[in-house]
């Protein structure tokens, strides 16, 4: 079972920052404390949210070019699946990993939800890619369920394809619905990481019913149903 305890967060954060070769945004605001104390720095959520939005311009939207060495380093750090495709996505993932280690867990959870709610499709996409890398990732299931229900196909695919999050954290019902939705959208089911571990009699029944419904309507049957119907 994949679990985020296998992720070396600090090492991953270092790797992403080094790869991007760009300064990370500073989510701290300096302010002067009392006269007796030196200037302190405080975490500022709005500054973080603005930088998170501005990451496309800071890091650029160009594709990543990862060498075999990069890929094996990522694998060593616990990331064994395709994580992201563009520089800004890498940057946003690095920002979230850093924030999770610096902000109180409850504060981080509400901030992540806010970033997701106010995020455009690119931002939301990056959050969904980051989910399996965050500490206590089971906290974020409701956000992930929302993506699983989305009609925005890029969001749905960010959750479903090459992402260990659903199979690790989803209960049966949302998992089953996600798989059926992927099937109906023509997404290759072999891109659902850990699907083989989540095969249940109920998922099989839903698949059999789906096939019957397609047959009754005179529609084609996706080839991938075989993956769900085998014993």
């Amino acid at each position: 079972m994949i679990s985020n305890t296998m992720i070396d967060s600090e090492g991953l954060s270092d790797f992403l920052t080094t790869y991007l070769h760009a300064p990370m945004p500073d989510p701290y605001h300096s302010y002067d404390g009392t006269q007796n104390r030196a200037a302190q720095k405080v975490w500022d959520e709005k500054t973080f949210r603005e930088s998170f939005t501005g990451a496309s311009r800071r890091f650029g939207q160009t594709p990543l070019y990862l060498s075999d060495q990069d890929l094996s380093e990522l694998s060593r750090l616990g990331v064994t699946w395709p994580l992201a495709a563009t520089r800004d996505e890498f940057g946003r993932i690095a920002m979230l990993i850093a924030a999770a280690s610096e902000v109180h867990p409850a504060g981080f959870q509400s901030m992540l939800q806010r970033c997701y709610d106010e995020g455009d499709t690119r931002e939301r996409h990056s959050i969904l890619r980051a989910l399996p890398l965050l500490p206590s990732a089971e906290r974020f299931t409701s956000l992930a369920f929302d993506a699983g229900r989305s009609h925005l196909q890029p969001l749905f695919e960010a959750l479903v394809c090459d992402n260990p999050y659903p199979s690790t954290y989803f209960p049966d019902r949302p998992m089953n619905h996600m798989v059926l939705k992927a099937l109906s959208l023509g997404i290759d089911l072999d891109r659902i990481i850990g699907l083989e571990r989540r095969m249940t009699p109920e998922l099989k029944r839903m698949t059999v019913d789906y096939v019957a419904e397609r047959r009754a309507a005179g529609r084609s049957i996706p080839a991938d149903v075989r993956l769900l119907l085998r014993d």
Partner: protein
Amino acid sequence: MRYFDPHIHMTSRTTDDYAAMRQAGIEAVIEPAFWLGQPRSHVGTFEDYFRSLIGWEPFRAGQFGVRHFCTLSLNPKEANNSAVAPGVFDLLSIYLQKDAVVAVGEIGYDEITPDEERYFQLQLELAQRFDLPILVHTPHRDKKRGTERSLALIRAVGFPEERALIDHNTEETLPLVLETGCWAGHSIYPNTKMDESRMVALVKRFGTDRIIINSAADWGVSDPLKVPKTAQAMRASGISEEDIETIVWHNPATFFSQSGKLDLCTVEQPIDQTQLWEGNSVLRGQAPTPTSGALSGKETV
């Protein structure tokens, strides 16, 4: 010919409209945030509207091969609603920074009230802070006075005129706008505002410099094909193809590219509808198209 409709409220339009627009050659649109016909009574409904303009509507448009950008603002009509106006204004510092937002707008005057003027000025300052151009709505009633006051406020604030697009012009307001450095938009409507033949006459009289046309189609009686239809009327009256293309493509593209977020190269590339998502190979297991070097297969992580 390819067309750019830089003012259309697609939220109110159907998928049939998108299909017809693409069929007619409309490749890019800008959707300005405005009011929805019925007053809103919660800040949250504005926020969800903004979210739809930066996420859902571009996705809907992309399915039909149309690129969708937007402008965001507290609109002039609802600037008068003190229950929501301050809260909506506070949202803008986050939402104006989104990739899809290519201007602050629609801002300006409706009834020319003190509240409208205050938020007009505050949003001119926001546009300067976020380095965005502005889209200025001109009122339906007392239009000439409203236009004069808009131009005067832009000048008083010191907002760069070449970054201001004054919209919904008529025969009376266009000369006022062209005297400044501002750009002039025209909303071609079935009944009100401006129609095709009047627009042809204006182009013959004033030329193409800083002239933009749009459909401003929304939830009322309006026509999302007015840009290509007006181009056709121009063609029929002997206006050159080059001049038409300046008005229906180059001018809006040039104006809004001042945002730094409307990449003309990207706009001019056809959308690959098999991908649906900005070349992101995570989604379909396709590698991004290499521009150079030996990128192949699954290079993405």
